């Protein structure tokens, strides 16, 4: 509840358009892996152990500072339950990046990752950026999916990989920020390789070469 008590936050900007650009992000994965919890941790810094399965879709808006830019994130939280699949997949096309989540204590949710990634391939644009997240890494005792398997699958699918915990606030912020960075990279790439302002031939690949980021290994 954002309430009167926030008022000390200071005078609001007269313009609400106080950001440089907007990214849309989608969180997908089986029901109960912790998508909603993950988003609530990130956006509100809150966590509740109670499980309330998401109905259809929901979203939160958060504006962050990244690389001297104010980026407004509209983060869509989808229902993992199959019965909402038609509605959730409708949102894939609008998303620039994805967080694909499984639960490290739930083998089945890990086995479903392949299917989810196929969904992305089918419904989303070709350069969709995906981060694979193994959530609930606070529950080490009940772990059934090793970090190694997670990493291998991520490599296989070409995604970056994090293990995280919405409960203990591990790697939550990092996941979102990394995704934003990856989208930014994709953005520069797409702008600098195929600039429609170029009418004739491209003069050389220098721009892209220099833009290509050193591929960091994102350990968690």
């Amino acid at each position, binding site marked *: 509840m954002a309430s009167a008590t926030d008022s000390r*936050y200071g005078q609001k900007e007269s313009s609400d358009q106080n950001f440089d650009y907007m990214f849309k992000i989608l969180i997908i994965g*089986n*029901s109960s892996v912790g998508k909603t919890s993950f988003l609530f941790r990130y*956006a509100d810094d809150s966590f509740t152990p109670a499980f309330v399965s998401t109905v259809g879709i929901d979203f939160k808006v958060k504006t962050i500072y990244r*690389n001297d830019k104010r980026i407004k994130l*509209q983060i869509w939280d989808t229902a993992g339950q199959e019965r909402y699949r038609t509605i959730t997949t409708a949102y894939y096309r609008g998303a620039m990046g994805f967080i694909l989540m499984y639960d490290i204590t739930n083998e089945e949710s890990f086995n479903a990752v392949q299917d989810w990634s196929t969904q992305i391939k089918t419904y989303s644009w*070709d350069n969709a950026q995906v981060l694979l997240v193994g959530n609930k890494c606070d529950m080490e005792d009940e772990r059934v999916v090793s970090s190694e398997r997670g990493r291998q699958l991520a490599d296989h699918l070409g995604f970056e990989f994090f293990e995280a915990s919405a409960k203990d606030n591990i790697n939550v912020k990092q996941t979102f920020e990394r995704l934003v960075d990856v989208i930014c990279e994709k953005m520069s790439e797409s702008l600098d390789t195929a600039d429609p*302002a170029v009418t004739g031939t491209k003069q050389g690949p220098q721009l892209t070469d220099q833009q290509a980021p050193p591929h960091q290994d994102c350990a968690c």
Partner: protein
Amino acid sequence: MAEEANLHSLQELEREEILQVLYRDQTVRNIEEERIRKLKIHLQHLRWKGAKRVSQEYKEKSCARCQRILGLLLNRGAVCQGCSHRVCSECRVFLRRTQAWKCTVCFEDRNVKIKTGEWFFEERAKKFPTEGKRETAGAKLLQSYQKLSKISVVPPTPPPLSESQCSGSPGRLQELGQFKGFNKSMENLFLSVATHMKKLSKSQNDMTSDKQLLATGPRQCTGQSERRSQSDTAINVTTRKVRAPDILKPLNQESPKCPTNPVLKQEDLSSSPPPNTLFSGGLRHGSLISINSTCTEMGNFDNANVTGEIEFAIRYCFKTHSLEICIKACKNLAYGEEKKKKCNPYVKIYLLPDKSSQGKRKTGVQRNTVDPTFQETLKYQVDPAQLVSRQLQVSVWHVGMLTRRVFLGEVIIPLATWDFEDSTMQSFCWYPLGAKAEKYEDGVPPNYGELAVRAKLVLPGGPRKLQEAQEGTGDQPSSNGQLCLVVLGAKNLRVRSDGTLNSFVKGCLTLPDQQKLRLKSPVLKKQACPQWKHSFVFKDVTPSQLRQASLELTVWDQAVFGVSDRLLGGARLSSKEDPAGGTDSCSQSKLQWQKVLSSPNLWTDMTLILH
């Protein structure tokens, strides 16, 4: 049986929840569109500037951006990778962390692509070339829901009359049929409860385990709303049921007779000039206006010299559709009675353009202070879709002896781009009080009420034919259609001094060849908020004609002695550029009109502002 009912209500609950999300998304989108519109205008200006330069005679040895002469050895310039023009070193912008650069114009172009998200839409178009550029799932869902709900939820509002007159129109069932496949997800979500339930059980084989589904099912109907990203804990849900009679309700609902405004003094009635002078068609800014404004401002008032500030917060709950204005305090107000140093202030608000007494909310009166504290929350029930067309007017008044009122200042806030998602926008904020806004600010046309209509373009072949009709000459008899229009009703009209009207509507469709088709509704007597529910059918028109045509709807008050009818206001629908430069309400109705033309055989509801 009981179980089924339960499941059904769960279904409704789900729909409610998803709708809330869709409406919240709609405001986010509105804000984003506004931002992008501004960015695009900015780039256009830059382009124009650039164009001047490009059109100048090309000189090999000068910078394409600033015309500086380039040297043979020093400062020779270099070719921009974006536009292949040679530019000087001053007119280059280096990209972050690289040696690569672009000229100033190319850089700005790139910038705008980033800021508007254009880069993404271009990339996406590679895979989905037919996808509407900025079309979002949410917008589509909402659109089809609104259409569907009109057909299946609201009882057939257009009277049978219209249905029979539009003989070419397919029946409701067929209309429903057209939606099948139009939007699978909506179909699944809102239409077929039965299949939905089957799916529910089938889905358990898929990516989710039975165990989880069973476990989550029942809990769904209980506390899920707690976790919605709403900030509405303070909102009393019961307020929803106690809806004030409100202009914001859809107009096509049967509404109780509008109460006549009780404020008019007796002398107004007796001393009013003969109707033929007062109510003559041309008279728009004269005494009528003053009658009207006297009504809404509750009698005469004086003006104080405006000083001071007011502190309030604006919140909107997408769940209950409740708009809350929390009035906290004022400071440094002017004295209502300067000589006596007296001030008994209170705050009054309206959601413009509604200035009816039902749309008014007031705080209590504070006595003998120029720094009053109110701590009062004033509420409205407003549809999210309506918010964008509203302005919040917050004014401060002094109550003197003999209930004489003195205006102490006001603030007007357009809600169209108010970001209700942003929690910082919900905080309290001090706003400087201003003098009374001019009755009609420059460029803002006067608002003489609202007219609700429903329109449909009937084509014999259904939507598939539209393509052909658009591409063909438009003259084949097969593509001839008719424009059906149901004039539902009007509100906030400039009533006579007795608070009523004998009103009727004229429709005039001007075709590209200047041919005019005119129709008129019957007169509804003694009503302030007439509900004609009358249908106009313009026969034998083609979509291509309509795209060039304009439709004018005017509302009239029938003259008592038959001298001349009084024009109450009118609205114009056309997809052509408005030469006067469209105001927001114009461009909105233009969009709606385009929707009518582009979705044949479907009803589109519109609320037109009368000017």
